[in-house]
């Protein structure tokens, strides 16, 4: 099968995140520089130096999933199933149509639900193993959210759960795109989801990777800012409906964008060696551009994974600078607004770029005041001579034909994905 013969298009999207539950509304709020980071209410954070997150406040699964029995679905599964419903609606995959045509799901997740897993174990520890709950056990597998979503929506095609830490969502989109290109599938939901819970919050707090967790300084989770000292956790789910282009056109589906190519790899130093990390990202971006048949100058914008991590953001800026030289294409980094949404992040970054294709505005980097001097020596996120931190912080009008999503994980995973307007730039 010639990969070029089967093109992959996006025909709809569903999102549940701290900034809303509709792609267009989330995008508008990102462009307006609205943050969603707020004091944590879902669990106690007394005595911790970090007390904020970007939670999906007041999530009501029934609003999306109707009156069925939601008890078997934990929060992660409910977020994913809700995003799936929205994506199916947006792309016109009615229940009747789903009955006639097999749909798949490729879900990126970092944890599934570490809360469900831990709570199951803790109940067995405190009440005795014979009081552990069988229904909860079914959800302790990391693929539970994908399995539950398949059951809820009747998705009988390929059902895969992909884990690469905070790059999981991007890797899931890449995985799904290859299934379509190789003829193994013609339509899949792909993206990612993770919940906010005490177990991951406290765990990340203890690693010192969360903004303000380590040195007692005020938390600063602003991507690429010199003051940054870690990330703020978020949560959510984002799924794109990916389809083979001709099949999508035949059924008259809305076509929002094309997934042009991707690349991924690993930094064997796991982020400890800046050069090794930069080189890994460069290879992934080069591979994605080659896969897309595009040269670096064809990329009009980048949707970066930067989350305020000291080493991670530096690695990403250095990698992008090495690929694109100066000036860099304009860079968006949404995590000072949406938080680090773990498995959902790559899909949220991709969705931001897809919305910007049509919206004509690239969201600014909320809160950026002092672009890191170390970054500047490698090329600032936007190396145009007149770009100041203030410019980077502001949303700006931008005509985008093709854009790059980049992802640098916490533990060595790297990935890149190229999206473009559908049916253009045959390269």
């Amino acid at each position: 099968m010639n990969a070029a013969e089967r093109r992959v298009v996006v025909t709809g999207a569903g999102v549940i995140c701290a900034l809303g539950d509709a792609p267009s509304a989330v995008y508008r709020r990102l462009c307006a520089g609205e943050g969603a980071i707020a004091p944590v209410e879902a669990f106690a954070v007394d005595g911790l130096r970090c007390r904020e997150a970007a939670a999906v406040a007041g999530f009501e699964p029934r609003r999306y999933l109707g009156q069925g029995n939601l008890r078997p679905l934990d929060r992660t599964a409910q977020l994913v199933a809700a995003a799936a419903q929205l994506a199916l609606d947006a792309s016109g995959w009615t229940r009747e149509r789903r009955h006639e045509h097999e749909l798949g799901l490729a879900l990126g997740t970092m944890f599934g639900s570490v809360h469900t897993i831990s709570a199951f174990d803790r109940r067995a520890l405190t009440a005795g193993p014979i009081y552990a709950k069988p229904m909860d056990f079914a959800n302790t597998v990391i693929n539970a959210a994908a399995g539950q979503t398949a059951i809820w929506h009747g998705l009988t095609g390929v059902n895969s759960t992909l884990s690469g830490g905070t790059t999981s969502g991007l890797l899931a989109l890449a995985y799904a795109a290859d299934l379509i290109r190789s003829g193994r599938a013609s339509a899949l939901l792909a993206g990612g989801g993770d919940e906010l819970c005490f177990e991951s919050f406290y765990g990340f707090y203890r690693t010192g990777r969360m903004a303000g967790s380590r040195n007692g300084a005020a938390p600063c989770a602003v991507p690429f800012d010199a003051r940054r000292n870690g990330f703020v956790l978020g949560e959510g789910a984002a799924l794109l409906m990916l389809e083979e282009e001709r099949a999508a056109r035949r059924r008259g589906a809305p076509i929002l964008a094309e997934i042009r190519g991707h690349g991924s790899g690993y930094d064997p130093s796991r982020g400890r060696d800046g050069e090794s990390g930069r080189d890994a990202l460069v290879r992934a971006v080069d591979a994605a551009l080659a896969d897309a048949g595009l040269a670096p100058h064809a990329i009009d914008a980048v949707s970066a994974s930067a989350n305020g991590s000291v080493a991670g953001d530096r690695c990403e800026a250095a990698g992008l600078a090495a690929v694109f030289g100066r000036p860099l294409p304009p860079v968006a980094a949404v995590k000072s607004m949406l938080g680090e949404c773990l498995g959902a992040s790559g899909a949220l970054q991709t969705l931001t770029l897809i919305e910007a294709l049509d919206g004509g505005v690239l969201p600014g980097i909320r809160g950026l005041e002092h672009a890191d001097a170390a970054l500047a020596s490698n090329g600032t996120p936007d190396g145009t001579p007149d770009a100041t931190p203030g410019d980077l912080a502001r949303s700006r009008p931008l005509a985008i034909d093709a854009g790059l999503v980049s992802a640098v994980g916490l533990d060595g995973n790297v990935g890149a994905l190229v999206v473009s307007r559908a049916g253009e730039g045959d390269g």
Partner: protein
Amino acid sequence: MDARVVVTGIGVVTPIGSGRQAFWRHLLAGRCGVAPVESFDTSGYKVHVGCEVKDFDPAPYVERLEAERLGRASQLAIAAARLALADAERAAEDLEPARCGVAMGTTSGEPREVERFDDCYVAERLEQVDDRFMSLYPCHVIAGHVAAELGFAGPNLVIPAACAAGNYAIANALDVLRAGRAELMLAGGADCFSRITYTGFARLGAIAPERCQPFDKNRRGMIPGEGAAVLVLEPLARALARGAPVYAEVRGYGLSCDAHHMTAAHPDGAARAMARALEESGAGADEVAYVSAHGTGTPTNDRLETRALERIFGDRARRLPTSSIKSMIGHTMGAASAIEGAVCALAVHDDHVPPTIHFERPDPECEVDCVPNEARAMKVPVAMNNAYAFGGNNASVIFRKVPEARP
């Protein structure tokens, strides 16, 4: 997308032996790995046996990283990866690290890390949680640790598809190689013995009290286990050019989802995965000489699995050798179908198929030739590896003999 991909190295760590040769010898001899559980206290449970890898020492395998800073699943995975690479005779030596990738399956990732967290939590001693908890625990670190240990910088992915995860990882590696995204992939699965897993299966009433008897009329359940397997996969052309040993070709795969029930399988999904794997492989059902069954030994699984086999193989399902090595090594979770993939490759290569041990009474609802109790010498031109998981995730992989390669 038609590059042929072959298995050139096999590394396994199992309850009945580690390393290809010892494992295969013990498997064909029908050795049983069931023993009293030592990882944790089972006095509060109604069952007390498991298939642990006793006396596992990661030290000989973990060279670049520090073994004591890795979870047990990562240690098992690294051991299997090192054994596989050694078996493949310098497969990675002349390759750029960026052309070498890792795809691993798992059910639970590093469950012992979250179990330690839970111990602190219920003791109200959260301050004793390891600062590295979030660096040790998330499941994706298994493939990461293998790559970091070996210096591999290519595609890196964990597919946590529960009890079918090994097959998902092998399938992904096949696609990565065919698409030219890497020239060598390590693919497999790893899971360590876990209190959480044991508790869950015990509560489902799925654990047998003494032994695992797939397809037997009196079968009483599965036995949780642990282990890891890694296959070295590379394009056939490259393997031939370097004169590498070739065990088998990974010819194709099929995936499907039941979308029916989280823990109960459905024959439709299993049959669709098998049909798809056969179709891609260009092999007729009549060419399949051996099936490595999912064969957990629970009353329901083996019955439904037999129904699915009948849909694909018809009357021949009764005569088609279909064994479950879970009778010997227990259910090693995400590692299971990776170890069984190694078994399929070895069966194809070595003209033997392993038995289903502890078989005593045929079950009229499970009329398969389960190769009862004794290994069998036979030609295996094509083998099928079946795996089914929580979440309704089904995966079948086809292995085929490569006559033109060095045996």
